[in-house]
């Protein structure tokens, strides 16, 4: 046991030293910066990669993380430079960012708005990141985007497909490279009309939450404009395992196309069960019954297996594209990880590069300068062809891919094929389009 000798003098001495120690630092307290987490004269600058590492979208999250790590390597001049070599802007020279080495921290969103915000907050408050990127769900993206706006950080969204992200929930500090539900509808509808005819009757099964609704609204509007009739829109609870009670009514509804507005595990379950019910072998109204999945991802397609053969859907990007940017990216990703990148990986890589490039062009880490550099920015060579970051809503406009499940896949990565590359002009819309109305970008917030 310890034995203490308390003397009056000892106590006074310690007290004086402690008092001085507490008073001293106020001299050194740094003056307020112009913006949140200003790296100042530090030799490094930190990015925050906030992706789902656990939960239903963990696979997508891991792939995003791979791509983000690769992007940081390329910005710091390691590896082969990937898409930096094909990028139309040459502001990044592989020596880091404004003379600082880029570092990153990672976090787990768990695909929950709360956890994602907690993780993002810890990145901002503890690690001092200046930009947050990643995510695999619209709910999370919108939640984190709001947080970044309040904190004075730039948010470069990952995979988020709901119209709301750049619609009613858009924020000045948030940017989305990924395409959205409206674009899916606009790209898919003409292909569907060509393949299946203009007098189809569609039945919607929709995941019952915000993303599902905007998806359903967009697809229904686009197909109806081409002459299809919407028989029924049925909402299914999120995460329900058994869809049989939703699929049986489809058989008797007189519909001849089933549109599955589901994502992730929900989509894998619903399409598998629809196929097991023999929907695709049926003839209705004298036509072959068809299934459509508006939003595809490689990982979902892998999970659904046989069921997706011949099923149409849309994607933001696919590794099978043949432009120079895609080739460079697939090469450096493949060499490092031994697999082709998914479309969520590509969007995160591109977002990280675009942010770094904007900083380099603006010559400043100040979020307001970065916002200015990104707004209305036109670029090429990042895998999606000529792309515009529209200033009105911070949405990227680029070509959209229409995909089909491959009939004879040769290996586990070769399960989807590109049917059509819908040109950008066809998926553009006015910023005040009713599906996107009601939001306000607000002012850029540099924080501190």
């Amino acid at each position, binding site marked *: *046991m310890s034995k203490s000798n308390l003397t009056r003098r000892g106590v006074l001495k310690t007290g004086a030293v402690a008092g001085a*120690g*507490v008073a*001293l*630092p*106020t001299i*050194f*307290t*740094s003056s307020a910066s112009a913006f949140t987490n200003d790296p100042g004269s530090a030799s490094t600058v930190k990015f925050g990669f906030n992706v789902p*590492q*656990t939960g239903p979208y*963990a696979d997508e999250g*891991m792939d995003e993380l791979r791509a983000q*790590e690769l992007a940081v390597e390329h910005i710091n001049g390691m590896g082969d430079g990937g898409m930096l070599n094909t990028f139309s802007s040459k502001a990044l020279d592989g020596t880091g960012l404004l003379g600082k080495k880029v570092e*990153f*921290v*990672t*976090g*787990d969103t768990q695909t*929950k*708005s*709360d*956890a994602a*915000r*907690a*993780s993002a*907050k*810890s*990145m901002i*408050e*503890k*690690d001092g990141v200046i930009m947050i990127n990643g995510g695999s*769900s*619209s*709910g999370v993206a*919108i*939640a984190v985007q*709001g*947080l970044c706006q*309040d904190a004075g950080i730039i948010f470069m969204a990952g995979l988020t497909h709901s119209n*709301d992200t750049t619609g009613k*929930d858009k924020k000045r500090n948030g940017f989305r490279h990924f395409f959205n539900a409206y674009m899916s509808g606009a790209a898919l509808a003409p292909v569907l009309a060509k393949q299946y005819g203009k007098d189809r009757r569609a039945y919607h099964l929709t995941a*019952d*939450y*915000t*993303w599902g609704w905007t998806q359903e609204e967009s697809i229904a509007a686009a197909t109806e404009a081409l002459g299809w009739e919407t028989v029924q829109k049925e*909402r299914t*609870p*999120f995460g329900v395992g058994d869809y049989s009670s939703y699929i049986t009514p489809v058989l008797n509804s007189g519909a001849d196309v089933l549109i599955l507005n589901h994502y992730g595990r929900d989509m894998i379950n619903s399409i598998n069960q629809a196929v097991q019910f023999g929907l695709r072998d049926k003839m209705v109204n004298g036509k072959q019954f068809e299934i459509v999945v508006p939003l595809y991802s490689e990982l979902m397609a892998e999970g659904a297996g046989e069921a997706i053969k011949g099923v149409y859907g849309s994607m933001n990007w696919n590794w099978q594209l043949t432009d120079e940017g895609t080739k460079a990216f697939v090469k450096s990703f493949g060499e490092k990880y031994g697999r082709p990148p998914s479309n969520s990986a590509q969007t995160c890589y591109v977002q990280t590069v675009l942010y770094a490039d904007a900083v380099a062009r603006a010559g400043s880490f100040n979020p307001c300068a970065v916002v200015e550099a990104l707004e209305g920015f036109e670029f090429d060579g990042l895998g999606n062809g000529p792309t515009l970051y529209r200033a009105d809503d911070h949405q990227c406009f680029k070509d959209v891919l229409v995909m089909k499940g491959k009939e004879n896949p040769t290996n586990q990565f070769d399960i989807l094929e590109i049917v059509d590359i819908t040109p950008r002009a066809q998926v553009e819309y006015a910023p005040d389009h009713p599906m996107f109305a009601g939001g*306000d970008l*607000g002012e850029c917030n540099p924080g501190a």
Partner: protein
Amino acid sequence: MFGLDKKDTTLLIVVTALVVLAPFILNPFPADSALAQFNAGYPDLMQRFVIFGIFAIGFNLLFGLTGYLSFGHAAFLGVGSYAAVWMFKLLSYNVVPAIVLAVIVAGLFSVLIGYVSLRRSGIYFSILTLAFAQMSYNLAYSVLTPITNGETGLQVYSNDPQILKGDGPDVTHLFGLEMGSAYTLDIGPWSFVFSAGYYFCAIFMLVAFYLAIRIFRSPFGLMLRAVKSNQQRMAYTGLNTRPYTLAAFVISGMYAGLAGGLMAAMDPLAGAERMQWTASGEVVLMTILGGAGTLIGPVLGAGFIKYFENIFSKINDSVLHQWFSFMPDGMEDFMVFIVHPFIGKGWHLTLGILFMLVVIFLPGGLVEGGQRIAAWLRGRGKKPAGGSGDPEHHPKPAPHVAE
């Protein structure tokens, strides 16, 4: 002091000291060292520690005292959050009406659920509460979207009415004191953050803790403990226990509502996930991990779990490589390979293993661990005098509930 006996007063003073000095205690490592990864002294996490502390204290009032295991407590937390955010949307960003309404709404909601669920006990009660909570979650996620904003979570928009806002701040505040404001104190390489929001929550936590002590020590608390030890016997003596259990349930629900309101006050967004069964399970884990039926246990458990969730999930491979960079190459890769499954996405695994160890070796939770260490230290001090102190192997006395 405050009507507490000496032992409880000491406990309250210790807890107060820990809470007030938390910014120092939780940031033991210099900001630029490799160990800074383990610092937990940033506002968001400290706020979470005390908020979930409140939540767990409240849960323990029900579970620890009456033995009724509610598996749906997150529903009250979620309802409290929604109520608070609605106050922000309708009135202003001032946190006082938000927190008051959060507690009231959670209280009313728990009367409703408690009234139905408490007709059963044991596992049936647990299942009923679980069912109600899942129901609330699913309602919030889809059907009630106009009120809850579904998956996205309820947020405040610039076009909301906010009738009392005037030209007040655009962030949550207490009569002008912004919750997000913080003062950073740099001492050498250390940096300590004092956040207004944290101290605001901390005050609530101390009050909640004090109330919990008073309830534990009151005749009402004694009655609840009697319910736990033998409810049937109480019924046979002609005593109706339901009003007592319902009161405990409602108090506990109001604690959860307070926690929910504070969460919204720190960060004005309420997501449906807050009500999910995993969130309800988490508070059960917190309480058991810390020590059910003890006063300080749930707070420790809450801190422990939140620490793992926020600190371990952020360690990634490149951080590991930094740590082991002093080793030769092959050795370094090997160490990273060994540690890899336990960090980043593996934080659940680490937490699960620790939880198992605690439950197996310290059935009384972290509190029992503390008691054993204290006993060992005392025993070591006494050793020269009287050997092991218990040569006849007397059974240990039952631990005092407050320890």
